[in-house]
């Protein structure tokens, strides 16, 4: 029975089906909202589904220069690691597998899709992809610093309260702390980290001001330039699920709380909060900014968000 | 060594080499063999013996010294010397003691030449290894110089 429940979790709620459907709906809402902000009607909310199924029906071409196996395996590896991450992120207090993974495992698993994108692009053998993967890598280097520092701040903050000062990266402990003391973003010391994380999400997801890697106008979508058909569909799916996972991680880290204890209601609340986060960090930013250059991205992330995150870390050490 | 065809640069050096080579050889061998009795031992003796190579080179030039001491033989001999040493050292293990243990040490009276078991043999092995090794080294270096002169 327990096993069956586990498999159900894996395949159904925080797992495969939820990720695919939730991610695609999230992406659809994102596109719709963006369109509305640009005074357009915009595509239907189910548009990402259509894109996905259309791409599944298309021919898959493997270019002659490509390393075939890496080229085809990369998207699948990325997708699966994303879904695995999704299983580890608690929905308020409900966490089917969270004890097996903590924050750093989640963060590391979240780099796998980026690495998969890089390896896939690299394997396609196109110079556009070469430029794209270099940009993707610089983006990773950019956002990793503020993200890590803000996570360390959270770990210390939670550890000070629950573990006698020994830091914790356990997601369930972070949720527990928030259940006891209210959401983390209400704490004075965490607010800079909150903002920094909010700024990290668009780059992690690869949305507009920081989508330097997949700039379709400049470099023909960078690493994806040679992909077609089903692998491309999976990459697009990855993109959507990354949005879902990042926002839900963000909600768990900063906006989580006691919850109602009923899974269905919690899930809906979580999803609404995710939508709010997505609106502010992805959609709004996408609507009002233009694409940055690669070294501008690096400069941006290593100045403002890093400064905010370090401020947060210092405040935590002062016990605020 | 008394080959008349060899061109000798300087007869003084040649005569000196002729004179000192046997002395060096004997002294070196003495030091090797009495390593367990008096200060000295395989290494020091070996180096003194190897100085004969230098003397011959100085007196007769590179060709004669390579003819006298064949580099290949020297090289192989060095390995043989090392193997001999390890063999004598391993004897300790065969005789149910530790590595490098001196076995047969109760043969002969203390102070005699043949008195200290395998230490004597080890000394000889080291001496052999060093004299060949250093000799080879010296020949090699002279060889580099000789090639350069050409």
């Amino acid at each position: 029975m327990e096993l069956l429940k586990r498999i159900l979790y894996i395949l159904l709620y925080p797992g495969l089906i939820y990720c695919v459907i939730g991610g695609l709906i999230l992406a659809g809402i994102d596109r719709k909202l963006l369109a509305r902000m640009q005074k357009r009607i915009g595509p239907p909310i189910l548009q990402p589904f259509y894109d996905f199924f259309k791409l599944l029906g298309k021919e898959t071409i493997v270019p002659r220069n490509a390393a075939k196996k890496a080229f085809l395996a990369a998207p699948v590896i990325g997708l699966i690691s994303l879904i695995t991450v999704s299983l580890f992120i608690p929905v308020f207090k409900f966490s089917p597998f969270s004890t097996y993974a903590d924050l750093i495992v989640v963060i590391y698993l979240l780099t796998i899709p980026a690495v998969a994108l890089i390896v896939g692009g690299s394997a396609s053998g196109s110079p556009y992809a070469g430029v794209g993967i270099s940009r993707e890598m610089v983006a990773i280097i950019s956002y990793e610093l503020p993200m890590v520092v803000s996570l360390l701040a959270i770990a210390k903050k939670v550890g000070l309260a629950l573990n006698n000062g020994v830091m914790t990266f356990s997601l369930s402990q972070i949720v527990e702390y928030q259940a006891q003391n209210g959401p983390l973003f209400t704490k004075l010391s965490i607010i800079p980290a909150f903002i920094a994380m909010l700024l990290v999400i668009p780059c992690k997801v690869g949305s507009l001001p920081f989508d330097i890697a997949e700039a379709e106008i400049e470099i023909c979508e960078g690493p994806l330039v040679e992909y077609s058909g089903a692998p491309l569909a999976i990459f697009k799916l990855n993109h959507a699920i990354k949005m879902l996972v990042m926002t839900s991680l963000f909600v768990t880290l900063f906006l989580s709380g006691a919850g109602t204890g009923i899974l269905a209601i919690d899930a809906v609340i979580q999803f609404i909060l995710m939508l709010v986060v997505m609106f502010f960090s992805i959609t709004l930013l996408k609507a009002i900014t233009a694409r940055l250059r690669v070294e501008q991205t690096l400069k941006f992330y290593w100045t403002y968000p890093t400064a905010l995150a370090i401020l947060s870390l210092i405040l935590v050490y002062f016990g605020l | 060594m008394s080959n008349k065809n060899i061109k000798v640069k300087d007869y003084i050096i040649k005569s000196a080499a002729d004179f000192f080579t046997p002395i060096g050889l004997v002294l070196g061998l003495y030091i090797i063999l009495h390593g367990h009795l008096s200060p000295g031992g395989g290494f020091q003796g070996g180096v003194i013996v190897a100085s004969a190579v230098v003397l011959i080179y100085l007196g007769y030039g590179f060709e004669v010294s390579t003819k006298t001491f064949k580099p290949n033989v020297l090289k192989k001999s060095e390995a043989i010397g090392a193997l001999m040493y390890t063999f004598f050292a391993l004897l300790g293990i065969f005789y149910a003691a530790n590595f490098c243990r001196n076995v047969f040490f109760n043969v002969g009276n203390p102070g005699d030449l043949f008195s200290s078991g395998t230490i004597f043999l080890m000394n000889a092995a080291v001496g052999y290894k060093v004299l060949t090794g250093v000799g080879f080294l010296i020949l090699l270096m002279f060889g580099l110089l000789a090639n350069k002169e050409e």
Partner: protein
Amino acid sequence: MTQHLPILSIITLFIGAFIVALIKEKNEILRNTIVLIATFLSFIFTVMMYKPIISEGNILTYWMGNWEPIKDWAIGIGLEVDQLSLFFGLFISLSIVLSALYSFRYIERETGKDKYYVLFLMMSASVMGFIFTGDLFNMYVMIEIMTFASVALTAFRNDRPEAVEAGFKYIAIGSIGSSLILLATVIIYAQFHTLNLAQLAGELYNNYTVTTIFALALMIAGYAVKVFAVPTHFVAPDAYMVAPSSISMLFSGIVNKAAVYGILRIIYVVYQSMNLPSMQFLLIFWGTVTMFIGVTMALAQHDFKRLLAFHSISQIGYVITGIGLTTALGITGGLYHALNHTLFKGLLFLCAGAVFYATGTTDLDKLGGLAKRMPQTALIFLIGAFSISGIPPFNGFVSKWIIYQASYEAGYAPVTIIALIVSVMTLASFIKVAQSAFFGQLPKEFKNVEEVPLSMRIPMWIMAILCILGGIIPSTVTKYLITPAADAVMNSAKYVEVMMGREFASKFYNNLGNAPIIDYKLAGYWQPIAWLILFGILLLAFTLVAVLGGFNPKKFSYADVEDAKYDVFYSGESAEFSHVGGSDLFWGLKYQFRHYFDFMHKIHSGLVNDYALSVVLTAAVILLYVFTFVR
């Protein structure tokens, strides 16, 4: 038999070296057989020590020539193998076997093979001797033989000017390092009139005088030169780059590790100085600087092996940081990373060697697209690259994460942050290698490149599998290898007690220490099997959907024929060779840090005087630091 194992595992290699010297150069089969037998026997002897030492917790001591201590005074030369030594010995002897196996084909086109194998075996034997010895002067002798053989092997391809140059630089810098170690040894001997490590440990316990501190500073500086910590690292990339790959692997896998072992032995067991915060700070700071500078320099390289060499420096920085943290977790992380570094760096060097064997060059600007011609090598390379970048589920992830956790728990938050950034930069530079060597377009001159022979692939595969295993079952590895070694590091009293006997240690120590208990309860890396199973289930589900759901696999098209459809997209231009090489892959990053990179390039001047000066200055700074802060 058991008591003779330490000496046997050393002497086998020496005997092998001497026998190989006797064999004619052309007789390859006999020579290879002897090399293989010697290395393998040594490995077997080392493994046989596992049961008495790690399983049963004993410590083997071995007095050469039965010269046992008299009246608590060690007069003979002793070997002592405790858990720490054996831990190092195990993976070192393994990598020796693998390197030997790899060498047979790799080196076949060179001349002077007999010399190669003699030096190879001498180096291996000296490392084993260094690890197992219990005598301070023996450590010096062994590390000097090691340096000597390393230099000769560095200059092995002496028809290349670079090789000779690197050899000279290595011996000049290395001899300064050895001299520092020797000087320290001399000073310690002058103070205590003994060279036995255990006896020294007893004498030095809480006994800091000016002389001993002076010796300590020199010791640290000397081993830092051998470990290639940062201001003394300049020769490492040169030497690693020009040496044959099987030797580069041993440089980073065993020579470096031997020096790490030396540092551990000196500061933890002989001096027991790691309870001083100033010593911890020194090592942590040093390790952090080392890892950062190593990785940033690696980003700027365009030669495969030179890049790997800089990474080697960087990863050693992790190890030093780990062992500098002093907590049980930190030491565990450091030792685990040392093990992992041997595996994945050896793997990567072997990959570089395979590339060199197949194409004749390691210049990343000339390579490209080799994954099509050498698929297995490419796969192995990717495993190694992901391991070193700390991507789950490979072994680098586990050890790096232990180090992060340990450093953050110890209150060194900046160290944690830098370590993470370094990890990302490591990934970046390996992406660069992957892109410019294995993926992308295949240059015309490499059209007929073939996969390397089986005997070269076997060692690579063994290491790759070990890399994966180390990531999947970290709890097992830790339980059966790392924790005993960490125990041995933390409880030096036991070492002293067994070596000197007759309750020698209890004169100095109050208690003989207990095994540290580490709480892994909240660490997610600890059960990677759990999420790997998830990974597997998802993969299965996904495949099922893909197979059953009409993914139309029929319409999957791939061809190797000249058809425009399968060309790479060049905005419609006809296919031409336009490969994005390694040099210009990260211009965005390099542009932002151009002042830093300019400065670093100026520092790595290639001038042997500068390198020597930096070593001398390092020694001076450490002397100053130690005299100011260590009391």
